[in-house]
């Protein structure tokens, strides 16, 4: 099955999530911000729990550095 990464599933919560993500990073050093992001990735990966979806997301995220 194709993994659909693009469709919007946040709906009206998107702006709120963005605001709360900014807030979570507020006052952190760049290194601590990176740590926060890694912790988030790990928690969300576990929440998704589907290796195929995670591989698709990894590949999509990496495209940026392969252009």
């Amino acid at each position: 099955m194709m993994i659909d990464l693009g469709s919007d599933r946040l709906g009206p919560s998107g702006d709120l999530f963005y605001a709360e993500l900014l807030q979570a990073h507020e006052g952190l050093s760049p290194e601590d911000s990176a740590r926060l992001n890694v912790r988030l990735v790990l928690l969300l990966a576990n929440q998704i729990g589907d290796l195929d979806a995670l591989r698709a997301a990894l590949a999509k995220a990496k495209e940026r550095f392969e252009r």
Partner: protein
Amino acid sequence: MARYQYQHFGYVPPPELSSRPAPSRYPVVIVGAGPIGLAMAIDLAVRGIGSVVLDDNDVVSVGSRAICWAKRTLEIFDRLGVGERIVAKGVTWKIGRVFHGDREIYKFDLLPEDGHKMPAFVNLQQYYVEQFLVERAREFPDLIDLRFKNRVSGVKHLKDLVTVSIETPDGPYQLTADYLLACDGAKSFVRTELGLEFAGKLFEERFLIADIELKADFPSERRFWFEPTFHAGQSALLHKQPDNIYRIDLQLGWNADPEVERQPESVRPRIERVLGRSDFELDWVSVYTFQCRRLERFVHDRVIFVGDSAHVISPFGARGGNGGIQDVDNLGWKLVAVLKGHAPEALLSSYDDERIRGADENIANSSRATNFMTPKSGMEKILRDEVLDLAGEMAFARKLVNSGRLSVPCSLGGLPLQTPSADAVLEPGSPCKDAPLRKDGEDVWLLNQLGEGFALLSFGSGPRIEVTDIAHVHVARPGEGELQDVTGHAFERYGDGMTYLIRPDQHVAAAFRIPDAAAICAARDRALARP
């Protein structure tokens, strides 16, 4: 087309300083003859209540200032009698395009459905809106007393009256009023005079705003750029206005010197880079700082704050002027009901509940847009850049791109005046949706059928009911009644067989699948805050 000709409205000595008779007490004094004060006076006048409008100046707004008028505001303007004129003069648009660098990442349509009299947005300079409102106000010579060059120099408020001190070219005088409506803008004198705290947030960001006159045929769209090559690293916005005037907003950063930036020799090269041409004239330039602030309460005994005097909101959502007009819409009928003795004074506290919700929604949306546009740290910048990069391809990321969430009406659902309903197709608290109808062979609009008072609005074949003192508007199937839903839009938006109690500001107060007179009267009494 010639550029706007500013006309002076002129000063007329007030009755208090001439031989004309003056009442000892006025029902309503409005401070400020901007769009909010003028709309307020007209809203009261169409409901039969007179007011005195005081303004220190005698000319419309200098510079275009508020230019984007949203659909709900246009519907309110239509109720006040200036909507059609504003649409006719303005530039109608509904498409927005968002660019990252020079690449278009997406385009949005603000009114994807048919069957509304008013468009999603009309761009029209504030000076035209004020001029049309002044001309409309003058159609009520017995009710609206416009007093230009009458500067308020003092306000004293007691529990049940307000005394206003006024300076004029002929010297000072005083007025006493039942209510004072402070529509005197972001720097409100009345607010300062009452010593009220105006709490909120200042964003460390400056934008240049310029109106330019240019003979060009750019499409009627809103265009927003993140990091365009013509304005490196910053944001830019382009809007079209009538008379060959274009609005350009350019992000300057916090270190920009406003005095330097507003000089033509600074502005012109920036605009030339945006347009790639120099055959334009500067019409108006301003540099502004983003702020979001509001009063803790808008009602202070007999002094009520309306518009920017009550709340200021960063731009890029068209939420300042539109929010203020929605304040007017909310307050007008309530103040009239109280002044006419149809409702207790407690009704006015619902203006606080309902419009503080609106102001908070506007402030939240505007703050988020500002945070997206102006990242405060390296991490915020990275997050913003990656969202923009993903946005070209991924729908979810497009939804996160925030170039301003454009003004939509606030829902009043769940607040005390509304009666909850399990059956509603259009929820209590929602503004009424427009729809095309046919009446005696003529095309008409649903919103224009609603009068100045409460209305029962029913659809199709459901039970019909009449209630004393409440006008009944019935929308029938094609070929069946006086007012017909020939396109099906009205039935789809409200539900066949439904009956709604509509507030005088065209919001749903209650909805009934099976209406009965007692329940309707109870909902009406609740909407009037009757005990």
